[in-house]
């Protein structure tokens, strides 16, 4: 997937003009947050669960090596294979090798953000293997040559017309505006793919160390067909998904469903614990887990460690007013919203990713809904510090800040400056710039503000000036009385 993050601002600008997208984002804003609120309301102990989730994740991250090793030995014991991928390319290579070993022509895929991260689909296609996305949203995107704009509702940026058009082109059927008809079309098309696929690739929401199991949660059941029908099942997942026990997994499942979609529980929760055993009715003959690092182990022990608690529920983006305004594609890479603003610079470098941690008002809504209490604004601020210390902050901002800081550290000088500024602005408000004396409609060098809104003018003398006068007057009064 191309990295378009440096063009965040331009992409955001386009997104703001895109009426269809704005409508879709409006629906999203009405939908998930509302459902989450109801689900949380119905569960008084939800905040306690969040604390437990946070603490458990912290414990796991402190002992990540231990749990990963346990997971690996259990998978091996169950007859599966674990592969360690340092980078995204490593992961793709490992998966390609497995596919080639079984002479795979087509692979079906359940939804996996990690595979978006590694660019797996493109890689397989380049090497003669056809990947087929089976999550309905992902399937639509694949037909359109598009990418997800949201991590749990990947096609949220599209409307019915877009879907109808894509299906019409690829299914050789008349156009329809009936969602049920469209769904049936997708179901028919995908069923053929499920049957012929040589390999099924899924992600994993969690990897359970005590049993060597991986789990996927879906609302469509496509994941089950992906992992049980083909002879080979490959799980691509990242190292921080490991949890110690099945019971720990259930804690996260409760947090995940409520935070993501406001469901008590996701419809399908499917565990894979190795290849089919003797007497099993179904299941793959080969079972592989590819554990992707891709920069994550570097985050352990760093100031970004808290980010590894993320369980990919999307609550932060569902509630983020910036995401709600510009949508996921503006973020220019795999992970959008506040979680992406922390994760993306880690993976593509702060040089390319700085626009994202800056695109936040630090309103804190994301942190307030995060099921594992990730301090997202704080982590975004870490990136800004990194950017600042590497002198990557734009020159104008840097210059502005240092001039301001020079004054802010010198109260007497600062007083003179505020006095002058407030006088100057007041003067401007009374001149042709104002039009109305209480406000300014245009301020030189402040177009960012006055292009869209008026600037209320200062009342007059600064508080400090007036306070001093008041103190002096009081003193005189005191003396004269």
């Amino acid at each position, binding site marked *: 997937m191309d990295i378009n993050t440096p063009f965040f601002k331009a992409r*955001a*600008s386009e997104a*703001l003009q895109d009426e269809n997208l704005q409508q879709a984002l409006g629906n999203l804003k009405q939908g998930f947050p509302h459902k989450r609120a109801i689900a949380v309301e119905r569960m008084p102990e939800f905040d306690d669960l969040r604390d437990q989730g946070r603490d458990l994740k912290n414990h796991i991250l402190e002992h990540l090596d231990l749990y990963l090793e346990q997971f690996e030995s259990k998978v091996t014991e169950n007859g599966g294979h674990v592969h360690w991928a340092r980078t995204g390319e490593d992961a793709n290579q490992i998966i390609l090798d497995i596919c080639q070993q079984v002479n795979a022509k087509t692979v079906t895929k359940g939804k996996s953000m990690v595979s978006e991260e590694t660019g797996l689909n493109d890689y397989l296609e380049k090497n003669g293997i056809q990947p087929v996305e089976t999550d309905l949203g992902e399937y639509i995107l694949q037909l359109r040559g598009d990418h997800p704009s949201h991590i749990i509702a990947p096609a949220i940026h599209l409307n019915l017309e877009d879907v109808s058009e894509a299906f019409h082109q690829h299914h050789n059927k008349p156009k329809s505006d009936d969602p049920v008809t469209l769904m049936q079309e997708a179901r028919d098309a995908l069923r053929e793919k499920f049957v012929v696929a040589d390999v099924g690739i899924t992600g994993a929401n969690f990897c359970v160390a005590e049993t060597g199991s991986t789990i996927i949660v879906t609302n469509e059941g496509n994941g089950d067909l992906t992992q049980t029908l083909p002879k080979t099942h490959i799980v691509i997942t990242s190292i921080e998904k490991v949890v110690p026990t099945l019971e720990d997994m259930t804690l996260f499942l409760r947090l995940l469903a409520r935070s993501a979609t406001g469901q008590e529980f996701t419809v399908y929760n499917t565990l894979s614990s190795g290849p089919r055993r003797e007497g099993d009715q179904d299941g793959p003959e080969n079972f592989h887990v590819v554990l992707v690092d891709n920069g994550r182990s570097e985050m352990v022990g760093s100031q970004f460690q808290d980010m590894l608690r993320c369980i990919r529920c999307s609550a932060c983006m569902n509630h983020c*007013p*910036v995401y709600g*305004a*510009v949508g996921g594609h503006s973020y220019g890479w795999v992970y959008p919203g506040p979680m992406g603003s922390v994760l993306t610079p880690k993976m593509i470098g702060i040089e390319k990713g700085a626009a994202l941690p*800056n*695109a*936040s*008002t*630090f*309103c*804190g*809504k994301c*942190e*307030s809904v995060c099921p594992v209490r990730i301090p997202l604004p704080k982590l975004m*601020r870490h*990136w*800004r*510090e*990194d*950017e*600042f*210390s590497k002198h990557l*902050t734009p020159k104008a*901002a840097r210059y502005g*800040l240092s001039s*301001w*800081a020079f*004054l*802010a*550290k*010198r*109260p007497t000088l*600062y007083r003179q400056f*505020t006095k002058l*500024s*407030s006088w100057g602005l007041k003067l401007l408000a009374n001149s042709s710039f104002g039009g109305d*004396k*209480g*406000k300014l409609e245009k301020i030189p060098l402040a*177009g*960012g*503000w006055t*292009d*869209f*809104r*008026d*600037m*209320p*003018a*200062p*009342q*007059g003398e*600064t*508080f*400090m000036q*007036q*306070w001093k006068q008041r103190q002096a007057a009081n003193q005189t009064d005191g003396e004269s009385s």
Partner: protein
Amino acid sequence: MPQQHPSEKPSPNVGLFITCLADMFRPSIGFATVKLLEQTGCRVSVPEQQTCCGQPAYNTGDRRTSAEIARMTIDAFAGYEYLVAPSGSCVGMIKYYPELFDKEDPYQQLAQELADRSYEITSFLFDVIGLEALQQQLQQLSIPRTITYHDSCSGLRQLGIKQQPRELLKQIDGLQIEEMTEAETCCGFGGTFCVKYPEISNRMVSNKSEFINDSGADTLVGGDLGCLLNMAGKLQRQTKDAPGELVEARHVVELLADMLDIPGIGEQEVRQLKDNVSAKNYALASELKSSELTGSELKTSAITAEQEAK
């Protein structure tokens, strides 16, 4: 200085943190804050060595400058029992001060102490001083307005300020609070955010002003001048050709301190607010209070007034 009874607790010695925006744009917020503090028996001073809380540097990633400004602010407020500011955002910043110093640095401890005794004004009045101290004064006020309250992000999420301003405002006779949709959603100001990403900020404040207008309130009230400048600026731009439609924007302390004789934010003159239901009902109710009408008569008259207003 007020005489103290020996058994009485000495009046709190409060240092006012004026906030750079209020200092420059709206000094009346500072004077309203002082008035409220004095009404509750506080001794108020304004330390001269203060400038800004340091948030612009902190949020741009310049820790060194933010630490230098923090040190200056800590020194400036060293002698005060409390630091009080008419802004949740600036007090929120002061709560970050301890993070700016190493454990070995003596300023770390001082920063923690300052953070612990720093309060946003409505939280100080309600949580520290207690409503009783101000209740009588507030109940004497009569402000026939319908307001809607914007919960600013830092105050709400960092300091837990939600109920305090509302409880204080509820004491005022004639004042009606109409909650807007998404009162807790960011207005898009975000300090430097609004100039770094003006278009996104504009979308956010446009959404916000829609909710404000839909609430039916005649006055927008909030506790942070940054947000208020942003929203007031947007509301004014939108009603450029219909100034009569403008929702007036005010800081909460201006209502609590009964300082409505100064123009709303971004306005030049004190505006006679457009007649609205609440104002009419209020006038009617006071009229009826003095005459001796029955409950049903009162109700009928109120309905008539409402219809007239529509």
